[in-house]
């Protein structure tokens, strides 16, 4: 239904600046292999994967209200699909990344059928049980090294690209492309009717339901998309590492705890939150990582402090204070010029 003379505008002045800046940044990052050091490239690629994981978790928890502590299930699943296909079927590892996404989307449907029966907090622990089941099953796959894991054979690694330099460039570009694709997909999803439905569910599930929003289907769509994206990133992460084992692939600390802390510190329920959070996370890590367990402990303290003192995170605080918005997600009714 279109009221005459009005339209819904998404972009604001700050989001136009944001998008222009974002486009410039992506261009600059795409040329990084020509000007950055090897170690910087690796760091950048790692940052991209964490921004992607955090954005996906934020979509799931911050927008759909599905607070999962078991997303490592899909990181690990993606990694194991990559290693399985590359080692047994001889598929070029790069091409297994989309397959990992597709297979994980299919796996996520029956999983959702089971864990959607658990409400709220219990849903969170349910996702964790699923991740544990995946981990224990992966440890049973003898040909993939069982509990101790396996490395990618040299022939498979050289099939990606002949030289190590080209391989590193390629993986870097894939990481950047995947991140841009995932962020683009999330923006499109949030601007579509699903986005409107999600916002309604986030604000009041009962009210959304009574206004005809299909709550379960909307949540299912988000859960499946998130699973696919997380698995593709998982495959990519372990393509960088060239070695997989159940404990690293399904690590709750690395793929869920860090990701949750990133989103909480940056700002839950805002697209910019995970980006800001990842930058803070890596700044902390680069300066404090030598502290080992103390570093993790401090990260936990910071996350709790943010949750209690500024529950909307760093970006939430800035956005409310200055009205900033980098992504064109708002909906405002404007009078048509014509």
């Amino acid at each position, binding site marked *: 239904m279109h009221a005459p003379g009005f339209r819904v505008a998404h972009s604001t002045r700050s989001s136009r600046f944001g998008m222009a800046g974002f486009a410039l940044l992506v261009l600059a990052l795409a040329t990084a292999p020509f000007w950055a050091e090897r170690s910087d490239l690796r760091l950048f690629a790692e940052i991209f994967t964490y921004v992607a994981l955090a954005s996906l978790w934020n979509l799931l*928890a911050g927008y759909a*209200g599905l*607070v999962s*502590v078991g997303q490592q299930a899909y990181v690990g699943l993606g990694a194991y699909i990559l290693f399985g296909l590359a080692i047994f079927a001889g598929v070029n590892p790069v091409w297994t990344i989309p397959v990992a996404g597709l297979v994980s989307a299919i796996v996520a449907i029956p999983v959702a059928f*089971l*864990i959607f*029966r*658990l409400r*709220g*907090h*219990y849903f*969170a*622990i*349910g996702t*964790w*049980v*699923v991740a*544990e*089941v995946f981990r*224990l*099953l992966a*440890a*049973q796959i003898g040909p993939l090294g069982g509990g101790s894991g396996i490395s990618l054979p040299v022939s498979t690694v050289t099939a990606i690209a002949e030289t190590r330099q080209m391989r590193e460039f390629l993986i870097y570009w894939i990481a950047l492309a995947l991140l841009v694709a995932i962020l683009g997909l999330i923006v499109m999803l949030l601007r579509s009717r699903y986005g409107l439905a999600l916002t309604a569910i986030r604000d009041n599930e009962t009210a959304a339901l009574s206004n005809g929003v299909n709550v379960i289907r909307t949540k299912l769509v988000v859960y499946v998309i998130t699973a696919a994206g997380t698995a593709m990133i998982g495959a990519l992460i372990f393509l960088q590492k060239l070695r997989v084992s159940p404990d690293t692939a399904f690590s*709750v*600390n690395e793929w869920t*705890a860090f990701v*949750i*802390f990133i989103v*909480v510190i940056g700002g*839950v329920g805002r697209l910019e939150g995970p980006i800001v959070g990842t930058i803070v996370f890596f700044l902390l890590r680069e300066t404090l990582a030598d502290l080992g*367990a*103390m570093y*993790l*402990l401090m*990260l*936990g*303290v910071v*996350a*709790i402090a943010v*949750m*209690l003192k500024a*529950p909307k995170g760093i970006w939430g605080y800035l956005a409310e204070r200055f009205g900033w918005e980098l992504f064109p997600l708002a909906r405002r009714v404007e009078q048509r010029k014509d």
Partner: protein
Amino acid sequence: MEWINTIVQGILIGGLYAMFAAGLSLIFGVMRLVNIAHGDLIVLAAYVALVVVETLGINPLMSLLLVVPVMAVIGYVLQRTILNRTLGDDLLPPLLVTFGLSVIIQNALLELFTADSRKLNAGPIETASIEILPGVSLGILPLAQFVMAVVVIALMQMVFYRTGMGRAFRATSDDQPVAQLMGLDNRHIFGLAMALSLAIVAIAGVLLAVRANFDPSIGPARLIFGFEAVIIGGLGSMWGTLAGGVILGVSQAIGAKIDPGWQLLAGHLVFLFILAVRPQGLFPKVQ
């Protein structure tokens, strides 16, 4: 005979799982909070017991006299200073804060006690056993632990339905604003509930420490066992939770008997199966 033995051992370990679950379901019942740090608090209790036993040189079971009140105080303070501030309509804050606590406890224990496995020695009682059937013998210690689990659950049932504190718990659980209007201080009631929960955690932690090796990283798995026992048994039912723990223990024992790699997997699969066919659990009390 071997199979009967396996099942009996499974039932006995189920008592321990029920105790992991009891504190968890108490907190959920009273304030709708799922404490992600529950498993790590069990491990923390085990380490508190370790310190008490090593400093005073007493039997681990005697250390309960100290560990239980210490953990109860920790629970009350934790609830009043941090957790009460996270409660509300939003699911995210309590979940994320307890998740943060879990990471903090794990890494603090790692920093203080290293990653080495520890165990508490309860003395000759550990190896004592009685033969109930030819070829089937019960360890005195596992049997005592199971009896303790039953006693703890019976006591909780009594506290809940026979005491003023239990009435306050139930009133707050049913309707917080009305309970407040009747003069109950929710913040204090929640503090008491967490104190009681951690008192049970203390018993579970000491029993765990006597029974098996422990290190700072094993908390999350205990949380998951407790959670599975709660869901299998059905929300809100204490005896159901005991049944859930026993079912989980027996499943794991049977899985381990088939293949050692299947011990944990069998427990999880039984949990998922029950979730699929009977999501309200076997003995639900609340809908």
